């Protein structure tokens, strides 16, 4: 009982932190002291001061404002990415697991093919071919990341398919579509959600990584990976340009990972026992 309370307490705590981050993203226009695109070039590369708490970048833009707006970019990109891969992957997995036979074989061979490539390298290739922008990066990472959910969805569905309530539904003449929607999906959803929550941190890093390499967000978008790359040129003379975006990534990834873990503990209590 005490253990459960602790889990819930931690989950509550991390949820608050996640909400705080989401708040930064939502209210960036009110929180940011300056316009993140406003280049006052005469104030280029100023060290952190009372006026610019995190300093300014090479074009004299306020780093704090850019980092706050960066929360927006990063979270929006990540959530849409995770949404896409969890949605598509689960759909493919559930269909494949429930239908079995040829459909299963074809879909799973496609998954095998995708898994045979090293993910991030393939994503770089795809993003490179399509040209660097935010949407293409999300598509590139989606193309290499959905397979995990397909595998997961399939194995969960296979387990469920043998259960009596499914057999009962089949016997009473429920259409396959209804079975999947009413009986299978609700039962596998918690596991999928936990996996997705724990994926958020990884995806933030991968998206920032692609932007760092120049395949993701393009200037002047305030995006942490891109900011790191821009700051790299001044690493010895203006280290704050890398320090703060790096710290932002660290904090956000840590918060989402902790939140994902605590969510798992809540939703899958049998593991804790």
């Amino acid at each position, binding site marked *: 009982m005490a253990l459960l309370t602790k889990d819930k307490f931690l989950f509550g705590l991390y949820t608050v932190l996640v909400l705080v981050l989401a708040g930064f993203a939502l209210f960036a226009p009110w929180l940011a002291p300056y316009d993140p695109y406003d*280049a006052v070039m*005469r104030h280029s*590369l100023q060290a952190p001061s009372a006026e610019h708490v995190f300093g300014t970048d090479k*074009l004299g833009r306020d780093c704090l404002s850019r980092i706050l707006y960066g929360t927006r970019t990063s979270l929006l990109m990540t959530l849409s990415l995770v949404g896409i891969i969890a949605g598509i992957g689960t759909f493919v997995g559930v269909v494949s697991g429930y239908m079995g036979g040829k459909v299963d074989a074809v879909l799973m061979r496609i998954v095998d093919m995708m898994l045979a490539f090293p993910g991030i390298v393939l994503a770089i290739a795809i993003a490179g071919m399509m040209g*660097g922008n935010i949407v293409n990066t999300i598509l590139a990472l989606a193309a290499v990341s959905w397979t995990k959910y397909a595998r997961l969805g399939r194995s969960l569905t296979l387990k469920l398919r043998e259960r009596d309530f499914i057999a009962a539904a089949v016997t009473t003449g429920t259409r396959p579509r209804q079975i999947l929607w009413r009986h299978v999906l609700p039962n596998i959803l918690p596991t999928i959600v936990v996996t997705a929550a724990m994926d958020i941190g990884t995806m933030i890093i991968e998206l920032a990584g692609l932007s760092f390499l*120049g395949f993701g967000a393009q200037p002047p978008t305030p995006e942490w990976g891109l900011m790191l790359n821009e700051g790299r*040129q001044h690493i010895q*003379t203006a280290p704050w340009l890398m320090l703060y975006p790096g710290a932002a990534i660290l904090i956000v990834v840590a918060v989402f990972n902790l939140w994902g873990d605590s969510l798992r503990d809540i939703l899958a209590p049998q593991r804790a026992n």
Partner: protein
Amino acid sequence: MTGCGGNGKKETDKKTLKMGVTNFADSLEPTENYFGWVVMRYGIGESLTKFDEKMNVTPWLAESWQISADHMAWTLKIRDGVKFSNGKPLDAAAVKASLERSFAKNKRAVTFFKYNEIKAEGQTLTIFTEKPEPNMPGFLADPLFLIVDVSAEASRNFAKEGPIGTGPYMCQSFVKDKAVMVKNPHYWDGEVPYETVEIPSIDDPNTRAMALQSGEVDMAVNIAAGDITLFNDKAKFHIDRISSLRTVLARINQKGILGDAKVRAAFISACDRKVYNEVILKGTFIEGKAPVPPSMDYGFDQIQDPNSYNFERAKQLLAEAGWKDTDGDGILEKAGKKLTVDFVVYNSRAELPIYAEAVQADTKKVGFDVKIKTVDYNLIDKMGINGEYDLLISNITTANTGDPEIFLNWYWRSNHSGENPQNGSGYSNPALDDKFAQLSIEFDRQKRRQLIIDIQQMIVNDGAALFFGYPETNIISSTSIEGAKMYPSDYYWLTNKIKPAKK
């Protein structure tokens, strides 16, 4: 034991030089693209003439030269006693073969001069030109015309193994990331101090600076503006910085949205170039205005720029041209089309993306949406020729012939049917073409100078390009070596004058 190790290390230090560079060449074939520059920079190839610190043409493989009375033939005396790195002696016939090879393999050659015949007799070479060529000695200094042993090509792949030239070093191995040179045993102009020269290509400017700081390389070229202060310790580093002959400019495509003279003028007026150079680039660049940098005497101060920074004028011009922000997103529209321009840049020079982003920020304030497209350097030349850009950034040397005629010709003389391929912008001004025609046959120095000033003024008036600034260039070397020197012409990096410091 320790003593031995220490001595051993010193011994190799004195025999091996490490030079950190930025390399754009995929091969060492001197006639491909601009790869001849690399062949010359790496000390493999030499040309008939050479530029000194003040861009005067001086003898190199040619001892002397003179023009015929009718101005249609140049006679050059080829230096006696020069040998290629394979031991074969250099004579006029070898020079002739090499020049003809350059003309056969690279279309750029005919933009310098066209010849009817090249005659070789012993050590005397005569070039009969189609029209008078006042600047021939300067043309022959271009790395495209560096002299290679054509007969050696049968047994050697120049592209992969490097050509056989007359320079102090010859290629031992070459890949894009790293070249290794070895001493040319037959070198004609004094002793060659190093057995081996390792030339890693460190394209990222900050990494290059760090490699020099850590001692991974003994010298490095073109350290970025922001990093020069890291090398102020005179006991450890020697900085050789000079104002270069280069111009950083954006070519403007007139076949697109910037074809409208008012839109173009607005774009240029919106860019506060003084701040880019003095503040963001910390004064390592001089503010741009005209095609030819102030380091050369071609009337920089008297050229008037109608499109100097003027925010209000930029807005007004756009309004006059009919552009309005109808949907309130800050970007102007006209007839349902957004005021969007593609700005193509490459990254191997640190200042280029900085200029591009500064322009993006400045022009946004008047309603342009600039999309920066970063591409590999090797695509730039082709994209320029094909006109696949609205703006295309370049860092160009303006006087690779000792005179800016060719540079001005290449980018701004009309190109109606591919006769002037470098001008892919669609820009054409008949009055300017007339001036070019006069310049090409003018021998009088003062008249040449005035023509060049007139040409520049016309280009600036037309807003034919956006001139950002004129860079300083530098070689920074560790004090363990001496003789590393940057020349304005940027062709002579590795020479036999670079040697271990005497201590």
